[in-house]
């Protein structure tokens, strides 16, 4: 029984993974282009975004169809809901890759600054987080979700540090303002990529066991099996990141309050 509905869900899953791989490739390439100042590759990335958009539409339509025609419940319902969100997040990640690609030409003459700011390291970490989250999407193995959050926090921290350095530089040298602004934009985009990766990880947790991690400060603890996150203040890496104002949610509007699930 239920075989043909299962086929549809499998189709959705496959498309989502395809979308993930496509976005991961875009991200990887854009970092490559950034580090090598390859404006040709940057251009290709911008072009390829239409492919991401098309797949985004396709997944949206499939979800809509599944909702309309199959009245999903329980796991099926969560999967389709999450697929919609993940799809949306992936599409935004694609857009961020394009934003970065658009700035590459403007900074191509300043490779030494990029090296000095350890941007290559941030970029490598972000590439990793994106790859990891796609792997989780593929395997639905939520055991590694904690690593994603840790990595996102680290990226965020490094990006903040770099941004602070850039601003300091801007105050002294007015001739670097343009390149500095471009770099800040790139860093913001990179940080968003990491943020969306954590969002996707949350959505996958929602699919796998129905827990909603969104807007929960110490989601890590949920993963570790503690249902009430507020009590675990002693958990070091968590409180540390929290004090530094880590905001996993890339949308600035979302408050980091553990109020509602």
């Amino acid at each position, binding site marked *: 029984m239920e*075989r043909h509905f299962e086929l549809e869900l499998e189709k959705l899953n496959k498309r989502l993974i395809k979308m993930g791989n496509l976005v991961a490739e875009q991200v990887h390439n854009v970092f490559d282009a950034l580090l090598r100042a390859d404006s040709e590759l940057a251009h290709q990335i911008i072009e390829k975004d239409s492919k991401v958009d098309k797949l985004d539409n*396709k997944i949206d339509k499939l979800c809509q169809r599944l909702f309309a*025609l199959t009245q999903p419940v329980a796991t099926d319902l969560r999967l389709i809901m999450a697929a919609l969100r993940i799809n949306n997040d992936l599409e935004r990640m694609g857009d961020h890759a394009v934003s970065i690609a658009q700035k590459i030409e403007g900074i191509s003459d300043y490779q030494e600054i990029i090296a000095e700011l350890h941007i290559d390291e941030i970029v490598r970490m972000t590439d990793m987080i994106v790859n990891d989250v796609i792997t989780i999407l593929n395997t639905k193995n939520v055991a590694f979700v904690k690593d994603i959050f840790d990595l996102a926090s680290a990226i965020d921290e490094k990006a903040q540090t770099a941004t602070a350095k850039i601003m300091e530089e801007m105050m002294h040298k007015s001739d670097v303002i343009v390149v500095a602004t471009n770099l800040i934009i790139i860093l913001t985009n990179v940080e968003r990529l990491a943020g969306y990766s954590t969002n996707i990880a949350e959505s996958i947790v929602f699919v796998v066991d129905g827990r909603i991690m969104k807007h929960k400060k110490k989601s890590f603890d949920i993963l570790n099996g503690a249902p009430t996150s507020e009590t675990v203040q002693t958990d070091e890496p968590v409180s540390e990141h929290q004090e530094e104002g880590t905001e996993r949610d890339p949308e600035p509007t979302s408050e980091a309050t553990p109020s509602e699930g």
Partner: protein
Amino acid sequence: MNKIMKEVKIVTKDLTLHYGQKMALNSINIQIPEKEVTAFIGPSGCGKSTFLRCLNRMNDLIPSVKITGEIRIDDLDIYQKKIDVVNLRKKIGMVFQKSNPFAKSIFENIAYGPRINGINDKKTLTEIVERSLKNAAIWGEVKDRLQDSALGLSGGQQQRLCIARTLAVEPEIILMDEPASALDPISTGKIEELIFELKKDYTIVIVTHNMQQAARVSDHTAFFYLGELIEHGRTRKIFTTPDKKQTEEYITGRFG
């Protein structure tokens, strides 16, 4: 997504039906594609069942029915004088709302159709019975008790038996008149899954009160209201972006 429209199996042209003075169907024009599932939905008394029964001329049995217009199956007008209704009905199987096995054994229920077609060879009949029961996904449940009365089966099994009985005549089209309306959800699921399997080989037309069922099983949906065909199109289109306001109101439950 954009599957090419398959061959058209059934076409009606201005099909109008009267029960005595009362008009039950008003100028229905529809094309039903081959080897796909077409669902007829609509409120009670909208004419969907009446229309279904026009397709195998089951309405002939009711004396007060008058039909004008045309129904062509494989481009043959089935209401023309020289059509042999008996042969037509062999080509078009029908499954009813209430499962209606004969008060005979499971074997004899399936063998009924072949027998009236003159097949009496035991071996051939055995083959037909086994194949039909397998195709109706009920072989495993009944293979050890083929000689038992069909009336001893559960409602869902009876309905699948009736589908098997229809398959035994090797029809090209299967009409289903609310085949799962009297069944529990599990049996309903089995019937729906069976419909999905059957559409590989048969053109299926199903009347259902259950919109979700139409959504789940059909490729095309036709919405009937007050004897008129309001809208007909791909199910995914009807259930996401219907063209007509009445369709939208009906499928969202805002009717009236």
